[in-house]
């Protein structure tokens, strides 16, 4: 019997309001130093490495809204599931262009798939989120598919 109710499957296609942000040279430089980057163009902030995008989606919330473990409240696209432990399942990026300081990007985040599999220790629910980073003209620069696993 499937764990995925019609209510859960009905969450497929839900999206958050688009997030607009400007890429900052100083943020790129900090990120490059913190990751141990060696390439001069990233260390100078002349271009952002791909994984810099991970940092721009972290919500900036008041301290009293953070959880006891320091985390932000979970993604509002995450439906109520019968399996409660949520694990990172990895990310897949399609890259269509480079990211430069001063670029104004729009990220559109949506829940694009929910499916279940039988794992060795029981059922697993896979949730696939799409983060679509576009430039101001609406052209995709990077499309990320991020998988989270409930067990």
């Amino acid at each position, binding site marked *: 019997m499937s764990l995925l109710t019609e209510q859960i499957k009905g969450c497929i296609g839900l999206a958050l309001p688009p997030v607009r942000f400007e890429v900052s040279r100083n943020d790129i430089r900090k990120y490059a130093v913190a990751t141990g*980057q060696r390439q001069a163009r990233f260390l100078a902030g002349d271009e952002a490495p791909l994984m810099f995008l*991970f940092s721009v989606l*972290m919500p900036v919330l008041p301290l009293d809204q953070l959880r006891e473990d*320091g985390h932000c409240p979970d993604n509002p696209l995450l439906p109520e599931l019968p399996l409660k432990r949520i694990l*990172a399942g*990895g*990310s*897949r990026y*399609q*890259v269509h262009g480079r990211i430069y300081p001063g670029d104004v990007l729009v990220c559109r985040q949506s829940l694009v798939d929910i499916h279940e599999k039988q794992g060795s220790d029981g059922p697993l629910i896979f949730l696939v989120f799409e983060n679509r980073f576009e430039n101001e003209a609406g052209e995709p620069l990077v499309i990320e598919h991020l998988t989270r696993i409930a067990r």
Partner: protein
Amino acid sequence: MNMAIPEVGQALPERQYTPGTVQLFLYNAAIWNAHRIHYDLLYAQDGEGHPGLLVDGPLQGDWLTQLLYDWMGADDLLLAFEYSNRRAAYLGDVLTACAEVEAVEHRDITFTLRIVNQHGQATTVGRATVRRA
């Protein structure tokens, strides 16, 4: 500038990472992540049952891209990248990032990527495709 196309099976130069508390602090500040398992040892041990401070999964993903960026020429393009974290990595681990050519199609080169700890266990695996200019 046209750069050489590698052969299937060819490995890129490995890179070793031994992150310390300062790097974990700076990384989590840069990505605005306050999860205490990365900087609060007592919480990581008593609150979540870890033996030490955890090395972020996405940081290891970044390290895999660094192998590629260090090898790529200025006009080469990173077309695709994926990674997943397979086991926890802790402060004090010696983490080695490795890449090997899996396939070559015209000027598109696909790599298999992994990070292994000092016990030879993969903590993160991945794949990427680069287009040579």
